[in-house]
């Protein structure tokens, strides 16, 4: 029995409470002339995430973290534009491919580690062809193809 609200699955999308700063961290630093620790309020924002972590760590109840990538909504016209550019580390999702209401983009070069407790409701899972594309694009994001 998992001690977490949801057992993460690789290639699945979830709503998550992602730790979020109320302002840009660099703006805070520009404002202050105080050296040392700078205190900033932390909030949480509910947003969809794509789990990219391996199955063993997902299933291991003693391991509390999960590696995800944030999912950003885009406009339908933007999806077509981005598909044409097809940047190697951009993972594009149409609503029918992922269970989200709007077309979306996942930047696979911007991964986040969050606590498994922050994962909430399951949204959907990627079809097998998209899983294969995810694997290739993750390898590209980490430069694994360059050796």
């Amino acid at each position: 029995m998992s001690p977490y609200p949801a057992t993460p699955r690789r290639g699945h999308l979830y709503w998550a409470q992602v730790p979020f700063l109320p302002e840009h961290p660099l703006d805070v630093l520009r404002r202050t002339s105080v050296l040392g620790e700078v205190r900033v309020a932390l909030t949480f924002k509910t947003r969809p995430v794509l789990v990219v972590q391996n199955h063993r760590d997902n299933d291991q109840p003693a391991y509390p973290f999960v590696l995800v990538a944030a999912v950003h909504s885009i406009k339908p016209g933007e999806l077509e534009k981005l598909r044409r550019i097809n940047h190697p580390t951009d993972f594009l999702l149409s609503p029918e491919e992922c269970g989200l209401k709007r077309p979306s983009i996942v930047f696979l070069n911007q991964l986040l580690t969050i606590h498994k407790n922050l994962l909430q409701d399951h949204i959907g899972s990627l079809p097998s062809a998209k899983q294969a594309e995810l694997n290739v694009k993750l390898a590209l994001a980490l430069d694994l193809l360059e050796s």
Partner: protein
Amino acid sequence: MIGYTLRLSDEPVVALPTDLARQAGLQEGIVQVTLGDHSLTVTPPPTETDYAARWKAMAMTLREQAAQFNVTLEDRRDASYWEIVNPLFEEADRMIGSA
């Protein structure tokens, strides 16, 4: 004198325990059994060079898969691309990991 019997399975390649291999005067490695030829060939254990070669082969496979998704490594991000993603990066800048 202690005798050792190497029990062969149906598998054409079997791993020979190190101690047994040494006592038999063989080097560590994989024993290749050529069926019907009554011969054994000891392959040296993999070296770092072998791992590098294996990884290159895996990277090649990944590059072939990348080609199936029409992914090229060249940077084709133009002004219209940045116009779309910059507002999304503004939000990404404020997300932090909890680890």
